[in-house]
């Protein structure tokens, strides 16, 4: 099934949700959906007879770094609207079609529903996204750091674009 058909199907199934196909980018279209409806849609994607997305190929967090300068009432410049996104690449082994999903959440409250219960392999991917971007996956059974040390500085997420390497870790100098 092509992406358009899948979208149509999704739209039929979830009439009230915002499901946008984003193919303004030239190479690969993906579907933007709402972060909070993710599990339902994913479950539908996995279980529907004509979709059967049985594997999650990849899940990646992205720091969109798309803040725009806004002036508030007092005239101070503020950066706003920066989002973190999560991309899901799904694949159906039985029907051999693919789909990419994207959800975006504001950086102030980066909360996404976990899909760990739908595709088991999301577990570590989500932990990694949490570790690297600080995206919080709700209902994840064990959302702790995975690659970085457990005692790494709280709130310091290395793959965010504004990350700065701390000077010391456990008494060891980090920068060269």
């Amino acid at each position, binding site marked *: 099934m092509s992406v358009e058909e899948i979208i149509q199907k999704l739209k039929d199934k979830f009439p009230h949700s915002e499901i946008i196909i984003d193919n303004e980018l030239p190479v690969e279209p993906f579907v933007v959906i709402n972060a909070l409806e993710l599990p339902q849609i994913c479950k539908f994607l996995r279980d529907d007879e004509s979709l059967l997305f049985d594997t999650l190929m990849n899940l990646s967090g992205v720091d969109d770094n798309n803040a725009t300068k806004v002036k508030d009432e007092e005239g101070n410049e503020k950066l706003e609207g920066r989002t973190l996104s999560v991309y899901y690449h799904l694949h159906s082994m039985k029907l051999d079609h693919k789909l990419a999903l994207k959800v975006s959440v504001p950086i102030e409250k980066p909360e996404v529903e976990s899909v760990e219960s739908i595709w*088991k392999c999301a577990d*570590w991917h989500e932990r990694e996204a949490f570790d690297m971007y600080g995206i919080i996956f709700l209902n994840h059974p064990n959302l702790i750091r995975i690659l970085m040390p457990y005692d790494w500085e709280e709130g310091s997420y290395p793959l965010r674009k504004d990350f700065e390497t701390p000077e010391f870790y456990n008494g060891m100098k980090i920068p060269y």
Partner: protein
Amino acid sequence: MAIKTEEMVLNMGPQHPSTHGVLRLELELEGELVLNVIPHLGYLHRCFEKHCEAMTYPQVVPYTDRMDYLASMSNNLGYAITVERLLGIEIPERVEYIRVIMAELQRIASHMVALGTYGVDIGAFTPFLFLFAEREKILTIFEETCGARLLYNYIWVGGLSHDIHPDFVRKTKDFVRDFKPRITELNNLLSYNKIFVERTANIGILPADVAINYGITGPNLRASGIKWDLRKNDPYSIYDRFEFDIPVGEGLYGTTGDSWDRYYLRVLEMEQSIKIIEQAIDNIPDGDVQSAVPKRIKPPKGSIYTRVENPKGELGYFIISDGSLNPFRVKVRAPSFVNMEVFNELCKGHFVADIITILGSIDVVLGEIDR
């Protein structure tokens, strides 16, 4: 059990002879029985993705080498294909052929290490050295062509760093010829050995449905009986021109999807790789390998997810480009990372010794898990 044995927490690794690097496993034991395995990762986290964001596109290639350092060529290939698709460029035939041969040789080399270290895990040291001696031949071939033994930086975006060495074809043919009897020897020495079979058959059975749900790919998935190989099912490069089989696990000595199947599947895959090499080696067309290498790689804005069949499984690159010289985001779907997730599930209820067996049969590379 008459007396409830107390639970004991045993650390395996990061320095442990058989955790294949710096994996740390925290075992919850009840006597010798494993209740739970908690893998702790990140002991080799080298910030690959951060580096990508600071590099230009060609500069990323050496770093991809260092992910799955046992299969650098395949990593290069995956990255090159991804960026090429992002750029939308055509690759000369010759390059494609050489790439396929290289990737298949690399697959053999990688499987050799997997099988050899697996032997060591089970306690047989000799096969390991035999396989390493064979592997050395592949490395010599690679070295002659691109100058490095392990981390090649050979497959570039749009081409190759060097043309093949004049001796390449002959040496590869020699290798292929000599290697076949060695496979038989390996089988006799290790694969069919009763002790080995007893150690591995029916250990760590991975049923097909669980495998799919966990996103397992590569030999581990095929060992569970699913005929799924990206080279056939989602062909990239020129794999659709070659004739080869996808071996699947059959549970010859135990249940389908057990450790022995995973082990033996790699042996079979080596045979298939040889088949591909044999078909490709004589048909390398002439041409210039660097004709399509762009001077300045500046892909358009966009994102792409491309996957290739690495020796360990499906290697995916997800690249977002913002139209500048540096990638905006590179995310690697490392096969070992995903394959490792099912580990705990496989280990439950086995003995301590089986943990090693299972870990070895999954064949993980820490550089890829931690990146």
